């Protein structure tokens, strides 16, 4: 019995030592920490985020890494699975910082999870560059260590509302006469999108006739769509991550809901144009990035170059979540190069002074950590392709309004 105990104790010690990961800036490697959603509700976008991070790390390492002084450092990412749960995310980020000694964090997927870990990175003064938390409330509390490469969620559907206002005459109405229906998931991101939509509709003087909030676990919006059929709004906006986009498009088709302008978020990560080309015809989609945009940067080249590299590496079209994740790692690389130091404070200051053109768009942070240089883009799904229709600077075609019945 005591021999067995000894053996168990030995195994225990080996496991303990083996799992203690220490001093992450040795051997010319800079370790970035990331707790992303590899399982759970956000598993799909967690995977997109991870793929974006990994592709950028590979690209940076292949190009020789980051040069600080005479040493070229390679990147490595230490991943944990936050299981799409904020509580777990906070535990894991604490672990990354306290136990694994990570000094630089890459953000998780989703505003809810990013919001949960903010106090921790702030307390430990660990700079975080995040690519997938868009809610405005992340930037209103005076946190100094968060930097976000993406546009905030209140801007997601602004181009759609503005476009509807611009084309209101095609529906025989003035912009102020337009009636808007909103269906938003009950989570920080979609609620912020909703706040943005409310602000935009108020700006144009439009009237909100339906304002429904879907519980996150609900996958049926036929009740709300029945109301839409009754009230006949001019504009329907839906935001509920991929489930919302998929459910909306399917049920709109099944119930034959006829609305002149339909705008959604998360179309491309739900692969709507690919999987449901007929049902999603003439639907407007909000994107943080699109491969047809003429952005260019040193690391990946153009947006199109990135899209092709991603498709070649992972076998599917890069959704914008992956693009912005790659951009986040690029920001770190650029900051290390400018700071010429691995001290978190110096790196933090270098990040806040970022002014970087990238394949994802220009990145320049304001004092709250938001990227104020990059625009949101609106596409319309036409014959299974996303066609950029707004803003005017990047539009490749005129939008089709109203949505023809089919």
């Amino acid at each position, binding site marked *: 019995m005591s021999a067995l105990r000894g053996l168990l104790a030995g195994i225990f010690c080996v496991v303990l030592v083996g799992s203690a990961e220490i001093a992450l800036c040795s051997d010319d490697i800079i370790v970035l920490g990331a707790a992303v959603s590899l399982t759970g509700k956000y598993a799909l976008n967690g995977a997109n985020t991870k793929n974006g991070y990994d592709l950028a790390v590979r690209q940076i390492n292949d190009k020789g890494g980051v040069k600080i002084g005479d040493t070229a450092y390679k990147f490595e990412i230490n991943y944990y699975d936050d299981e799409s749960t904020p509580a777990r995310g906070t535990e894991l980020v604490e672990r990354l910082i306290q136990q694994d000694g990570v000094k630089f964090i890459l953000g998780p997927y989703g505003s809810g999870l990013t919001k949960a870990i903010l106090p921790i990175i702030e307390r430990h003064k660990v700079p975080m560059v995040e690519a997938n938390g868009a809610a405005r409330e992340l930037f209103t509390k005076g946190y100094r260590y968060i930097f976000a490469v993406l546009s905030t969620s209140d801007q997601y559907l602004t181009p759609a509302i503005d476009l509807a206002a611009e084309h209101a005459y095609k529906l025989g109405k003035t912009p102020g006469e337009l009636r808007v229906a909103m269906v938003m998931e009950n989570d920080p991101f979609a609620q912020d999108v909703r706040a943005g939509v409310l602000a935009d509709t108020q700006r144009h003087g439009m009237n909100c006739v339906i304002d429904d909030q879907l519980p996150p676990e*609900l*996958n049926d919006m036929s*009740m709300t769509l029945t109301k839409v059929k009754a009230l006949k709004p001019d504009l329907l906006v839906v935001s509920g991550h991929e489930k919302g986009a998929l459910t909306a498009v399917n049920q709109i088709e*099944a119930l034959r809901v006829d609305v002149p302008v339909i705008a959604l978020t998360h179309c491309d990560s739900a692969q709507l144009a690919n999987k449901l080309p007929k049902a999603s015809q003439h639907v407007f989609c909000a994107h943080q990035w699109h491969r047809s945009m003429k952005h260019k940067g040193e690391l990946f080249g153009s947006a199109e170059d990135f899209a092709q590299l991603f498709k070649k590496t992972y076998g599917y079209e890069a959704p914008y979540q992956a693009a912005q994740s790659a951009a986040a790692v690029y920001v770190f690389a650029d900051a290390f190069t400018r700071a010429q130091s691995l001290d978190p404070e110096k790196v933090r200051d270098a990040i806040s002074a970022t002014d970087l053109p990238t394949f994802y768009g220009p990145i320049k942070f304001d004092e709250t950590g938001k990227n104020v240089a990059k625009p949101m883009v609106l596409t319309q799904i036409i014959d299974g392709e996303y066609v950029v229709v707004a803003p005017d600077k990047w539009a490749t075609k005129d939008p089709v309004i109203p949505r023809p019945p089919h």
Partner: protein
Amino acid sequence: MVSNLLILYEAPALGLQLAIDGLLIGAVFALAAYGMALVWGVTNIINVAQGEFVMLGGLLAVYAAEQGAPVLLAVPLAALCLYVLGWILYYTIIVHLVGRDMFNSVLATFGIAIVLQQLMAHVFGGADRIAASTLGSWFLFDGLVAIDKMKVLVFAACIILGVTLSVFLLRSRQGQAIRAVAQKPEAASVLGIDTKRVYGLTYAVNAAICGAAGALAATAYTIHPYGGLSYTIRSFMIVVVAGLGNLGGVIWAALSLGVAESFAGFIFGAQYQIAFVFALLVAVLVFRNWRLKRQRRYLA
């Protein structure tokens, strides 16, 4: 809320739409709840993995549809796969739980649920999917009411399955054995019924029912490896409302729940839909308790 009621008053056809949608989703809940009631009644085990069986059935159907198979063929296929899985789970885990503390069974089936979720996510990926139907819809009242043909087929399939199950339980030898074991396991065992096999059969049949329900649900609603909880909760709720052993009541309660949810979502807004339904559950239980109290006082 009042404005929504006014809409219903002005366009009663929409009430028809809500009722139909409610019945159609209620039929899927009815199957899942029927299976849970069966397992609970016979083996005294609350199967917390019920929703995960439904999701697995749905994912198998989506997979089959993506390979080009007709969706309705996927239903018996999913049921068969889940039947086999049910037997495997029974002989590895459930057989040790029968006759023991209910807490153990809840814990173990919760564990099964978690393992199934992770396996599904690993094999099928974490995306929401749907096996969209191409059958179209019937339109009544000048397009105001849309009846998805696929959903009608789903409803019919659920009814047929329900009836088949009832006939199986009432008429076949296996069904008789199941009912005997549910009534008194010791007596059944004395009469030569292999109770262990009967428990296994019940659990496997439950898995098959859930698989079929999931495959049917996948034609109209999104399926996600982590989306099973809402089915588990609703099955549990329906069984509680209907009362254990009251299989006919389960169908009735499920359809009513579907319709109630549908109307609640329209009148109160989607955010209060589930809250309303659970408030209804509490009201039903309180009312039932009050009625029973009167009966008890009368008898005492």
